[in-house]
C-alpha cells in the first residue's frame, strides 16, 4: 500500500443525486471539468467522486431535471474551536504534498468589513431629496491630475483657460473593471469587459498578459498594465489604451509576483504574452528596475516619454501598513492615479496565507490615503482608485465618500458572468468558462453573454448610485467625493472612526 493521502479521505463537498429525478442523460459527466461525475458503462449508472467536487455548482445548474444538490460534506470532525476542519485539512494537504497552499479570489476570512459598519445619510424635511428619474444626476468622473488653480484670461470678450489642462480620462460611471489578465480569465470575458466598458463609458484593464489582437479596437476604453514580467509589452501595446497601469502590488498577494502556470499558456496566450507555449509565465515580486520612489519616477516617466505624454500613468499597490506614506511617494513620483487594492482584492491564484492574512482593509486604506494627500496638499495631483471587496453600489458610494475618485470591480464582474466563488481559478478548469482557456470550457461563456451580464450589472449599480445620491440631496458624484459627513459608523471604535474620519450614528 502506498502512503495514505489524508486530504483525500475528507471531501469538502457531497454530491447528492436524486435518483427519482435522474434520467441518466449524463450531462453532469460532461459538465464537470474535474471528473467528479462518472458514468459506469458496465452497470449503466452514475457514480460520484466527492473528493473531486470543488463546489462550483455547474452540474447542479445544468442538470435538466434538477436532480443534483451540492452540499457541504455532512461528515463532521469533533468540534474544536481552534482546530477547525479548515486548518486540519490544510495540514493534511501540506503533509501529503509538501507545498505552498494555493487558492483563488480574495481574502475569505471574516475580518471586520467596514463597509458593513457604515450607513448613509438621506434628506428629510429641510432639504428635499432629488429624484434621478426627473432631474439630471451626474456620475461623470474625471481621472487624472487637476491643476492647483485655474487661470482664466479674457480674449476678445471671451473667457478661456490660460493653460491647457493636462489630459484627463472621462468616465461616465465611477466604476471600472480591475486588471484581470488574458490567461487568468478567458478571451471571451475580456471581450465582454471591453465592450461593456465602451458602452458604459468606462474603462477595463488588460492585466499583465498583453492585449489580444481582437481588443485593440477598444483602445479608448482600455487601461494597459505594465507588471514586473512585462509580458506582451511593446510600443503598440503601451499606446493602445488611454492609461498605463504600473502594477507594483495586488491586494490578494501583496509582496509577491504573479505566476501563470505553463498549463495555461496555450497557443493564443503565447502569442499575446509573447512567450513559448507551455512555459511558465513568471512575474518577479519586484520590478527589478524599481527599488525606490526615485526609480518608480524613472519608470513612470519612461512610460510617459515613450508614449509622448498622451497617456495617464496609474500606479497600483496593495493596501499595506504604511499605505498612506507609500501613496504619497507615488504621487510625488508623478503617478496620475494611485490604485489601492485592499485585503479583500481577488486573484486567479495566490498562496492562501497571502490571500487571507496580508494587507489591510480597503476602507481604512482609502480614508488614510485621502487624508494624507490632503494634509500634504497634493490630493489634486492624483486620483484615488479603490478596489478589493466592492460588492454592491452601496460599497461604491461609501468608497467614494471615504475619499476615492472611482473604484475597480473584479470579482463582482466575474460573479455577474456566472462565477460561483468556488475559489479554484488556479486550476484553469473553471467549469463556468471564466477562469480558463480550455477551448471546450470557454465556449460555455460566449462574449455576448459576458458583455450583456456585465453591462447590466453596472447599469443597475449606476442607477442605484443615482438614487442614493438623490436621496442625499446631491446631484453629482463629485460632491460625494471624500464627503464623510454623508457617512455614519455603527459599531466601530473611536480609533476606527478616527481613521475613517466618520462620526458615530447618532452624533
Amino acid at each position: 500500500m502506498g502512503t495514505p493521502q489524508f486530504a483525500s479521505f475528507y471531501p469538502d463537498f457531497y454530491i447528492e443525486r436524486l435518483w427519482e429525478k435522474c434520467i441518466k442523460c449524463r450531462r453532469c459527466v460532461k459538465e464537470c471539468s474535474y471528473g467528479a461525475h462518472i458514468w459506469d458503462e458496465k452497470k449503466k449508472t452514475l457514480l460520484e467522486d466527492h473528493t473531486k467536487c470543488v463546489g462550483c455548482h455547474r452540474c447542479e445548474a445544468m442538470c435538466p431535471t434538477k436532480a443534483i444538490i451540492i452540499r457541504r460534506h455532512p461528515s463532521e470532525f469533533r468540534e474544536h474551536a481552534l482546530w477547525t476542519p479548515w486548518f486540519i485539512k490544510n495540514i493534511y494537504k501540506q503533509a501529503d504534498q509538501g507545498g505552498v497552499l494555493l487558492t483563488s479570489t480574495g481574502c475569505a476570512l471574516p475580518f471586520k468589513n467596514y463597509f458593513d459598519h457604515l450607513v448613509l445619510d438621506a434628506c428629510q424635511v429641510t432639504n428635499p431629496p432629488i429624484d434621478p428619474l426627473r432631474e439630471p444626476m451626474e456620475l461623470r468622473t474625471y481621472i487624472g491630475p487637476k491643476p492647483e488653480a485655474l487661470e482664466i484670461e479674457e480674449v476678445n470678450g471671451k473667457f478661456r483657460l490660460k493653460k491647457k489642462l493636462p489630459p484627463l480620462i472621462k468616465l461616465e460611471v465611477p466604476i471600472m473593471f480591475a486588471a484581470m489578465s488574458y490567461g487568468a480569465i478567458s478571451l471571451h470575458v475580456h471581450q465582454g469587459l471591453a465592450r461593456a466598458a465602451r458602452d458604459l463609458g468606462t474603462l477595463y484593464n488588460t492585466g499583465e498578459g498583453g492585449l489580444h489582437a481582437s481588443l485593440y479596437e477598444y483602445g479608448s476604453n482600455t487601461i494597459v498594465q505594465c507588471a514586473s514580467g512585462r509580458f506582451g509589452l511593446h510600443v503598440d501595446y503601451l499606446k493602445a489604451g488611454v492609461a498605463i497601469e504600473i502594477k507594483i502590488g495586488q491586494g490578494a498577494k501583496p509582496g509577491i509576483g504573479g505566476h501563470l502556470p505553463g498549463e495555461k499558456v496555450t497557443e493564443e496566450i503565447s502569442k499575446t504574452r509573447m512567450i513559448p507555449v507551455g512555459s511558465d509565465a513568471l512575474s518577479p515580486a519586484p520590478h527589478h528596475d524599481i527599488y525606490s520612489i526615485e526609480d518608480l519616477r524613472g519608470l513612470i516617466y519612461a512610460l510617459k516619454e515613450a508614449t509622448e505624454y498622451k497617456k495617464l500613468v496609474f500606479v497600483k499597490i496593495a493596501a499595506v501598513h504604511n499605505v498612506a506614506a507609500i501613496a504619497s511617494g507615488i504621487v510625488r513620483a508623478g503617478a496620475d492615479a494611485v490604485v489601492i487594492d485592499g485585503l479583500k482584492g481577488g486573484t486567479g491564484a495566490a498562496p492562501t496565507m497571502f490571500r487571507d492574512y496580508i494587507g489591510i482593509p480597503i476602507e481604512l486604506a482609502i480614508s488614510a490615503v485621502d487624508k494624507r494627500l490632503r494634509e500634504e496638499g497634493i490630493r489634486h495631483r492624483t486620483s484615488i482608485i479603490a478596489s478589493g471587496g466592492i460588492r454592491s453600489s452601496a460599497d461604491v458610494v461609501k468608497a467614494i465618500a471615504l475619499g476615492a475618485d472611482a473604484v475597480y470591480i473584479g470579482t463582482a464582474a466575474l460573479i455577474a458572468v456566472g462565477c460561483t466563488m468556488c475559489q479554484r481559478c488556479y486550476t484553469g478548469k473553471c467549469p463556468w468558462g471564466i477562469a480558463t482557456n480550455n477551448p471546450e470550457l470557454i465556449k460555455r461563456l460566449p462574449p455576448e453573454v459576458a458583455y450583456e451580464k456585465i453591462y447590466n450589472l453596472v447599469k443597475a449599480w449606476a442607477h442605484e448610485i443615482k438614487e442614493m445620491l438623490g436621496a442625499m440631496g446631491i446631484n453629482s458624484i463629485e460632491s460625494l467625493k471624500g464627503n464623510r459627513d454623508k457617512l455614519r459608523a455603527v459599531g466601530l471604535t473611536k480609533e476606527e472612526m478616527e481613521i475613517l474620519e466618520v462620526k458615530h450614528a447618532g452624533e
Partner: protein
Amino acid sequence: MPLELDISHLHYSQVNKILRDYIEKGEREFILRGVNGHRYLFAGISAEIKAQLYGTPGLDLGAFMRGPEIRVFGNVQDGAGNTMDEGKIVVHGMAGDVVGYAMRGGKIHIYGDVGYRVGIHMKAYMDKVPVIIIGGKAGDFLGEYMAGGIIILLGMHSIYPERPLAGLFLGTGMHGGTIYVRGKVKESYLGLGLKPYALDGEDEKILEKHLKEYCDDFGLDLSEILKEDFIKIIPYTHRPYGKLYAY
C-alpha cells in the same frame, strides 16, 4: 549626412520631441553631442534609424524602443535597453545596472563592465531572440528570471581585475535562454539548481556568429576572444516553480 545636434542644454523630452519630428520628416541618421545624463533618449521610438551619441546618456536609454541603432561613445547609466523590442545599443564604455531588463528583441553590445541585475527577465519568442554581450564583468543577479535570449559575458575589458567574472546569483530562477561565459565561474555563484555545461557544436556556431558582430562593432580580434573556453548556463527546468504548490 547625419543630422548633428548639441543637446547639452536641452531637456530630455525636448530632445525626444526633436528626434521624433525629424524622424517624421524622414531623417534617418543622427549625431548627438553633449549627452549628459539625459534620460529616456529614444524611449518608445519605433523607426529604423541610426544614432551616434557622444557623452553619457542617463536612465533608460532606448527603453521600449523598436528599431533604432544607437552607438554610444562613452558610458551609459542604468536601465539601458529597458524592455527594448528591436534595434541595437552599442556602448564603447561601461553600463550601469539593469541593462536590458525584460528585453524581448534586439542587441546590446557593451565594451566594458556592467552593474547589477543585467538581463533580468529577458525573453524570446519565435524569431525574436535578444542578445546582450558584455565585454567586461557583471555584478550580481546577471540573467535572473531569464525566460529567453542570449547573454554572453567575456570578462575581458574590465577595470576591476580583483572582481569575479560575474557576481552572485548568476541566472537565479532562469527558465529559458542561455548564458555563455568566457572562462569559469565558481558554482557557488550560480543560482540554485544551475550547473555550468561545456559547449556543443551548435553553441559554438551561435557564439561565433554573435561575437563576430561584436568584434566588428569594436574593432576586436575574434580569435583572441575565442582563445579561451566558454561555459554555458541553461535552465535546469522550464518550470522552476512547478512543484511549489499543494492543492
